């Protein structure tokens, strides 16, 4: 006869089995149309490119070698692939600056929103949500119209007599940066706002009572308490900024490539699918390393406040 313990164990096993069955469809779809294909990319990065795209099933480390190295066609010596290094550097630089810029603008904005009265808070939240859910391509296109030579910024500058000829912003790194900061700003504001909303202002009051300056209160009380939001926001901005495709291809023109445009090139005109695959894996590795370093670093400094 089964003891009570055995019955409980059986019930638990049944529960776990049911929970696996319930989550099976979601896991299956994600494996088939997201995770699984990533494994194929990994395999492709070690194969030989086929003549018309795709691959020949023959092992070759060449793709990985040419991520950073270039083989001289005459004497077979290897040298640093300057073009790739430039693109890697540009992508990482622009993603980092975008994250910093959105944080500098987003933190005060989230603070402002969180300190409004309960009723008006909803309105501000609503106002930040609209650009968030507006198509990214449409928002990039809107920026394009503002910063192009005939756009509103140049028109105003010329009318005011500050410049005589339009300033070329479009098709530069600055254009990509402006565009990315613009489209990813709500991604920074929303998570910071979420943790800022829960902030207990009695702690701030206590800080002032103990003669802390405004800046000190901000640095020693507010910032540590909303840190989870800041971390979440930075991750949410950095990942898509590093792999950004739409913004650089619309605002950067052909010359100012970022990693995503380089990857696309290998699958299109370049017909070098293994190299494209190796570059894709490299992007993922950068993302993961940055994530780990950031989360670990952010977790170490500053004490936990619960």
């Amino acid at each position, binding site marked *: 006869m089964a003891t009570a313990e055995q019955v409980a164990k059986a019930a*638990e096993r049944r*529960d*776990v089995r*049911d*929970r*696996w069955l*319930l*989550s099976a*469809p*979601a*896991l299956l*779809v*994600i494996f*088939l*149309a*997201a995770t699984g*294909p990533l494994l*194929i*990319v990994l395999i*492709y990065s070690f194969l030989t490119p086929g003549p018309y795209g795709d691959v020949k099933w023959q092992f070759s480390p060449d793709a990985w070698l040419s991520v950073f190295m270039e083989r001289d066609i005459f004497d077979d010596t290897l040298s640093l692939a300057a073009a790739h290094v430039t693109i890697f550097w540009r992508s990482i630089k622009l993603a980092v600056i975008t994250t910093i810029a959105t944080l500098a603008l*987003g933190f*005060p*904005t989230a603070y*402002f929103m969180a*300190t409004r009265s309960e009723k008006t808070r909803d309105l501000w939240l*609503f106002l930040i*949500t*609209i*650009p968030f*859910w507006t*198509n*990214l*391509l*449409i*928002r990039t*296109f*809107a920026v*394009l*119209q*503002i910063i192009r030579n005939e756009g509103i910024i140049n028109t105003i500058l010329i009318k005011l007599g500050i410049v005589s000829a339009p300033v070329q912003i479009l098709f530069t790194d600055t254009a990509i940066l402006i565009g990315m900061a*613009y489209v990813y700003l709500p991604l920074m504001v929303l998570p910071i706002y979420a943790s800022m909303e829960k902030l207990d*202002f009695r702690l*701030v*009051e206590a800080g*002032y009572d103990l003669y802390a300056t405004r800046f000190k209160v*901000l640095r020693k009380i507010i910032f540590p308490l909303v840190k989870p939001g800041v971390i979440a926001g930075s991750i949410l901005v950095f*990942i898509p900024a*590093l*792999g950004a*495709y*739409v913004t650089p*291809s*619309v605002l950067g023109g052909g010359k100012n490539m970022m*990693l995503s445009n380089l*990857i696309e090139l290998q699958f299109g005109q370049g017909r070098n699918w293994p190299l*494209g695959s190796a570059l*894709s894996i490299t*992007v*993922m590795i950068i993302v993961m390393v940055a*994530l780990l370093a950031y989360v670990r670093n952010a977790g170490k400094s500053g004490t936990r406040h619960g």
Partner: protein
Amino acid sequence: MAKNFSIKHQTGFTVIAATCFIVLYLPIIVLVAYAFNAANSTSEWGGFSMRWFQSAWQNVQVIDATLRSFQIGAVAAVLSTIFATMAALATTRTASYPGLTFKYAAINQPLMVPEIVTGVALLIFFSRIKIFTGYSGIGYLIAAHTAFCIPFAYLPIRARLENMDLTLERAAADLYATPWKTFRRITLPLLWPGILAGLMLAFVISLDDVVITEFVKSGGQDTLPTYMLGQIRRGITPEINAISTAFLLLSVAIVTLFFFVSRKRD
């Protein structure tokens, strides 16, 4: 210390916040304004006109791409919401069990990988399947959209479930309701706002996608965003402003709905 100042105030923050909101909305307002421009180019203002809306409305490619966007979005949103609801029920309100962490990681996986990488991965994978099966319909787009919509649909549903207590369900069970009856009469009605929010979120996310669609689509399978991307690369016409404006209005409508649905407390 005398508290004759607001403790919530921080120097300069209001100015930055105001700048942010102005900067966020200015380009959108200019975009919408130029959609009503009568001139042939967006470089000059030629008076108010609806002609570009009419021209977009009669453009077969635009209509075609819009219908395809809606078709894919609707199917992907419904599928991903159903799967996300099931997954949320399986991963909330329980003690930790073997595989729970794995499930969280797996469900959120599409969020952690840059879109371009998922895009090329699907390009490789689906091009193989296309050769193998000969099928090249929009099924691939629907599968891809369903996969990356799941984490977004999952978010509000899980949040709603976690805030629900088990009392009512236990009461139902005490009153001899079958598990299915408890789910249908108690859990589902309580969960409904979360499901609706998830559905809307998934639909907007699918409607928004450019990158993955660009890599997965076969010839002649443009969605509205990929069609617009192609047009913008060729040069700006006021028609694109008109299409963007119409798209924008739709987004605002969905966001407004979403806002009210997800704000609704119990």
